[in-house]
């Protein structure tokens, strides 16, 4: 019994509940969310500080209470080397989202803070849960607040994107639930620790269960070809939504492989790993190619997630310690890097009113030098440059594929490795192409409203339909000027001929981004910081494979 995990769940939940008090109606303290998520982050850091790194494979901070005795369900929480980095990442990214929101208060702040805090509870719970059904409950809890984040605070096409997001992932969860029930029926327990320590499930049942659970997790991850909810959701979601979606929600899918699918169903994993690897590498190349022809910045980053998650899935598919290590490293690195990318893409969208690359023009490095440089940094990290966090996950995944577990076909995985290698070149190609288009060159005269976002323009216009900032030219600019009379650099009606001054990075944005930059550098230069935690845990995960 340890109070830390429970406190980590309770703080955001109670924080959200307090917001429901009538006293908060209409006047939420500006930094309320910041404070609550800050406390959670402190708890997470405390968790990391008191974690016993000598026994990273052991479940620590365990809480095991009876929950629904009739069904033998238990409220079982705990932390080990696999979940610890993800818990800290979740707490950090949520906190940074609130930092950003503190600098740029959103519409309906009370509702957004409430939603995000519930979301945080669900995300942390998913990584803490050690009971299959409890895991499933938290897994589902996350969907609802994220649905609202997209549907209420999203862009013009938010309704359709939110509906697609929730229906698609719910369908995946339903399939996963079937798989969990197969495990329950076969093993008679839902306790992950007990299951991982050798409950013999028949091979055929393992394959069926792995297929069902894997499908559910693959939707979330997302694995090609189950990814199409992702680009829409990312493109329409507000910045904080995109960051948490890419930074944490996708990780829940891949975490499921490390926590449930592989350790509990080793034979099923061995049987289906070639398929997992195949879909993973298809995702790498497919996602990269899709990025190469994208016009929208946020959509491009969304597709890049498909590629990066392909590396993570390939790592799992090898069923080797090095491959699973790669997957866990890649998870954390992707959360940091893509989180940063979405933060920056959001900042760009705020300033230009669009994320369409052709309309962004170019010359961002001369117009917004800080944002342009940070965008360059994030892209370079994301394309897997050694010395930055993105490299180790990709490199070790390829290395894992070079010699997969004994029961897997080596020639097949060599083919996967080569395709993955080509994928790294394509990844570099689309990021550099984007940088070349957006940050290089000389700035052209911008079209459309310069400071206000399309979202605000839409509000002013009061319409629901998608707003084309460029379409109405000066009229929209005039509306924008009305919408934000005090905003700097709004040109008069005659002033559209010269590029307006835009504010470079704000203090709040910098505060939200710098921790990510620092962590990307630390994990890139010192991969041992993460590998030392995950390696022992990975050995434990793979105990059943090949046995």
């Amino acid at each position, binding site marked *: 019994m340890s109070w830390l995990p429970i406190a980590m769940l309770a703080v955001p939940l109670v924080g959200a509940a307090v917001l429901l008090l009538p006293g908060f109606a209409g006047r939420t303290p500006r930094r309320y969310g910041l404070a609550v998520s800050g406390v959670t982050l402190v708890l997470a850091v405390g968790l990391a500080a008191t974690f016993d790194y000598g026994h990273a494979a052991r479940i620590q901070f365990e809480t095991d209470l009876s929950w629904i005795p009739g069904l033998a369900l238990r409220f079982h929480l705990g932390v080990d080397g696999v979940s610890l980095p993800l818990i800290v990442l979740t707490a950090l990214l949520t906190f940074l989202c609130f930092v950003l929101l503190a600098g740029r208060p959103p519409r309906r702040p009370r509702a957004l803070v409430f939603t995000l805090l519930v979301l945080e509870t669900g995300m942390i719970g998913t990584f803490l849960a050690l009971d299959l059904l409890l895991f499933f409950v938290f897994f589902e809890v996350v969907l609802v607040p994220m649905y609202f984040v997209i549907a209420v605070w999203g862009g013009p096409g938010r309704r359709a994107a939110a509906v*697609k997001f929730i*229906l*698609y992932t719910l369908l995946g969860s339903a399939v996963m639930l079937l798989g969990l029930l197969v495990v329950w029926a076969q093993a008679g327990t839902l306790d992950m620790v007990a299951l991982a320590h050798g409950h013999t499930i028949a091979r055929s049942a393992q394959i069926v269960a792995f297929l069902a659970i894997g499908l559910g997790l693959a939707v979330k991850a997302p694995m090609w*070809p189950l*990814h*199409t*909810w992702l680009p829409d959701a990312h493109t329409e979601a507000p910045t904080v939504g995109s960051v948490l979606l890419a930074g944490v929600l996708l990780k829940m899918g891949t975490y499921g492989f490390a926590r449930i699918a592989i350790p509990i169903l080793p034979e099923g994993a061995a049987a289906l790993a070639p398929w997992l690897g195949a879909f993973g590498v298809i995702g790498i190349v*497919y996602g990269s*190619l*899709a*990025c*190469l*022809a*994208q016009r929208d910045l946020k959509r491009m980053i969304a597709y890049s997630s498909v590629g990066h998650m392909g590396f993570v899935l390939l790592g799992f598919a090898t069923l*080797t*310690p*090095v*491959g*699973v*290590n790669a997957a866990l490293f890649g998870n954390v690195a992707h959360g940091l890097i893509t989180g940063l990318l979405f933060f920056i893409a959001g900042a760009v969208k705020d300033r230009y009113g669009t994320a369409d690359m052709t309309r962004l023009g*170019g*010359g961002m*490095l*001369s117009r917004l030098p800080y944002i342009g440089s940070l965008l360059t940094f994030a892209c*370079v990290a994301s394309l897997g*440059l*050694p*010395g930055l966090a993105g*490299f180790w996950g990709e*490199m*070790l995944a*390829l*290395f*894992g594929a*070079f*010699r997969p577990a004994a029961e897997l076909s080596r020639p097949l995985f060599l083919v996967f*490795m*080569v395709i993955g*290698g*080509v994928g*790294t*070149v*394509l990844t*570099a*190609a689309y990021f*550099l*192409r984007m940088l*070349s288009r957006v*940050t*290089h*060159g*000389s700035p052209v005269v911008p079209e459309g409203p310069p400071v206000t976002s399309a979202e605000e323009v839409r509000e002013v216009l009061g319409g629901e339909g998608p707003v084309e900032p460029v379409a109405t030219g000066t009229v929209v600019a005039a509306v924008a000027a009305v919408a934000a009379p005090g905003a700097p650099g709004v040109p008069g009606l005659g002033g559209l001929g010269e590029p307006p001054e835009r504010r470079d990075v704000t203090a709040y944005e910098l505060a939200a981004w710098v921790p990510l930059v620092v962590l990307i550098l630390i994990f890139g230069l010192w*991969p*041992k910081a993460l*590998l*030392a935690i995950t*390696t022992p845990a*990975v*050995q434990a995960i793979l105990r059943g494979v090949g046995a």
Partner: protein
Amino acid sequence: MIVLAALAVLLPFTGAAAGLLGSRFPRRRTPARTARRRAAWFAVVPVAGAAVAAAWLAGWQATGGGEAAAWPVRIETGSVPISVGLQAGGLAALVGVLVTVVALAVQVYSVGYMRDDPRYPSYSSFISLFTSAMLLVVYAGDLIVLYVGWEIMGLCSYLLIGHWWEDRANSRAAVKAFLVTRLGDVGFLFGIFTLGLSAGSFRIDDILAADLPKGTLVAATMLLLAGVAGKSAQVPLHTWLPDAMAGPTPISALIHAATMVAAGIFVVARLYPAFLAAQPTLDVLGVIAAVGMLGAALAALAQDDLKRVLAYSTISQLALMAGALAAGSEHAAIFHLVTHGAFKALLFLCAGVVIHHVESNLMSHMGGLRSTLPVTFWTMTIGFAALAGLPPASGFFSKDAVIAAIERAHGPAQPFLYGCALVTVGVTGAYAARAWLRTFFGSPRTVVLPHAGDHGGGHRRVPRSMLWPVVLLAVPALGLGFAGVRDLDAGSAATSVVIALLGAGVVYALWRGAPELDPARMLGPFRTPCERAFYLDAVYDRLVARPVLRLARGVVRADDRVVDGAVRGSGRAAVGLSGLLRRAQNGNAQLYVTGVLAGVLLIAVAVVVLG
């Protein structure tokens, strides 16, 4: 003593960090001049320290110090561990000195050359970062650590080629350089995997000591060769280097002539025992080198852009080193690597002075600069003499060592390689003479262009900080060869000098006949193919770049119509199906009762019939 190597790696790294973060801090109260001065200090002092450390290390080694190594950290990966550590043998110590000395010269030179550039702090910081990465490659004792430095060099090359990113062409050149080298690096990484997994360690010593099967070695070295070809701009991955001349000239001197492009040669030499045990790889390397040295030399003969002449000559000279490696003499290759590093850096820095003065890269805008730029004339003459392999310049000795090694080699590719090498010597003499004559002799042809070359403005005086490094580099470019005077092979030396003079003589005769015409006209109908480097760029564009983009557009279309189409289709199907079901739920009570009655009737009939 390994502390010195660590110091050499870390000093420029801290310099880079300080330059990037500290030059303009605090931003509001730091005028641009202060930032520049600060950045210059951050740039020059650490690399000077690194040069001292590298020289000390090399001196200690030369006086019998032996090899220094340290392995402070071991990273478990779940499979083969990564040993983070440095190791400095004789080869590493020598190349380390070359890198730091050229980097120091370039940093000092850049203070003057980039005097008017508003982004000087980031520029000099990236040079420092590059220096650090290159030294990491040189001193690395573990292949993964080496790979980290290897890729960071590539990044710095990308950032610095694209330093003047306002011009889209520079941006494109930077992207091309990164992608082409990255393509080779994938093979390089797989080669590292093969070696590491077979030997059970990524440490270079362990790999060289391990008794690996020949098949593994051939496969691994072939894969490594891909990375070497990319980084060292060898056929067929050489096309990025001429375009990389879009970067500032000091960058071309440091990265694209003296150091980074030589890293490929260095790595082969570092792992030479593995390559020697894999003869097929050496044969392939020989063919690549033979094709590359002659093709690039011919291309150099037809270029009008002075920097592109030097770029193609770099490809050709690197191929010469690769030829020496293929012929089995790593000693000759490294000798030529070092002298080439000195004289090619000198040539580029001189070219920078010329370009700074004339404000154009094109030789057709130059001419008669002998009297206006006397120091540059003499130093560049030394450089060209070394390039052409004329005594007593350093290139004469090292090129002789290479030619002699190739002459003595065996193997199926040897006659081809030797023939190409001799012809290349002649062509090198020709293009060196052409560049020298068209730049410094004849009548001044300068046309002031509205925007040409790197800067705006009229003829400019050359700052002193640019001349000092040039003069200093001229010393090793002239004298370094005497280190190899004892191994001089008189026969092959005489042959190559005669051939080089023959090439130069033909050009001189042509030029003498009509000084205002380009001697490249002697190529006749081959002139255009040579100028376009045999259309390889166009071929790659057709075969790789465009198909990939077409495929990408196809993927986006398919993603929308097929993959997402299925998802949307299932949604529509569900709605359609529920529309059908809705017919039954139309709220008409009569219909419901009729349905119930029909059901009862059916059941009754079924009971009667089946019962």
